[in-house]
């Protein structure tokens, strides 16, 4: 304990540190459930429009670069691994190792947003924008009905997901600072674990977004 700095004491209204950790995790999973429900609204919009405009989705998705989407999938999967290893190191009292894994996770998250930036600027340049901002008039969409709807859904889904990545980076930075300060040990690493759960959910949502947006069959 001495190496890890301060000793952690659970709040007095909990019977034990474990009860406190369980309560915190229960709250986090409940929050993650609301996240699933929030995203489901956009997934519903996707499903509804794809079921009525199948040909349009097929034509419109070809303007997305599946290689960039695939690259971002691999980047997020790697970041999920390093996040899980960061939690594992915290469980084992390995503070420096945990900080290292958290830094790698942050770098992956940053790389994801950089790739996303290039994708967005390309689409903004072409005018492949949601709703009334849509100006693209390329030959791909000859006889295709309402391709602007696909890009509306694309920007809302990836945009909401992108904000989650951004917020995840803030949360991981907070955890990283607290790790280097010596707040966590094998006795108390709940915040690391909870931020990990959040980060894996962000990865999980992208796992569905990749085939649904970039690889429409």
């Amino acid at each position, binding site marked *: 304990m001495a190496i890890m700095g301060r000793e952690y004491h659970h709040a007095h209204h909990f019977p034990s540190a474990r009860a406190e*950790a369980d309560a915190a995790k229960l709250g986090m999973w409940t929050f993650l*459930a609301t996240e*699933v429900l929030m995203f489901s609204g956009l997934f519903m919009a996707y499903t509804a429009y794809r079921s009525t405009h199948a040909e349009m989705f097929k034509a419109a998705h070809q303007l997305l670069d599946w290689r960039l989407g695939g690259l971002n999938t691999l980047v997020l999967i790697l970041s*999920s691994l390093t996040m899980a290893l960061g939690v594992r190191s915290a469980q*084992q009292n390995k503070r420096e190792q945990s900080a290292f894994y958290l830094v790698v996770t942050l770098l992956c998250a940053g790389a994801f947003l950089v790739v996303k930036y290039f994708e967005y600027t390309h689409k903004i340049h072409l005018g492949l924008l949601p709703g009334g901002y849509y100006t693209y008039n390329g030959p791909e969409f000859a006889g295709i009905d309402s391709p602007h709807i696909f890009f509306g859904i694309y920007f809302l889904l990836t945009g909401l997901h992108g904000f989650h990545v951004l917020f995840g980076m803030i949360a991981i930075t907070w955890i990283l600072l607290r790790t280097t300060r010596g707040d966590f040990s094998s006795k108390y690493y709940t915040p690391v674990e909870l931020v990990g759960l959040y980060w894996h959910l962000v990865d999980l949502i992208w796992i569905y977004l990749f085939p649904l947006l970039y690889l429409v069959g």
Partner: protein
Amino acid sequence: MTQANATHSSNHGDGHGDEPHVLPMQVYLGVWAALVFLTIVTVAVSRFDFGSANTFVALLVATIKGALVVLYFMHLRYDNKLYLIILLASLLFVSIFFTPTLIDLHTRDALDPIKGRTMYKLSTSKAKSQDAAPAPAAH
């Protein structure tokens, strides 16, 4: 009796006892390798034409990947099953959201063939109005 049961159940069940439940490194690396492999599978199956099952196959691969993330990275395989129930409950409510919405959407023209169709066939008017050339009666 109750006391004995209480202490017993607090030591077992959900891996988060007094000592953290640490998974071996190989589990994490193995799951990661499986996720990378399944990402390649995701791209590969999209090149294949399974006909109307295309979306189903894509979602199946994504769900296998998702299950790996949830069970191992998020520890649900070893953790308190209450968390798994919360996650599954959210998916149950998503299905309650999706099912009636889709049934409604695709049975509207059975009630009113003309109005039902215009409700979701957005028509080309919106897209056409974005174009510079005003061609009102193109289609």
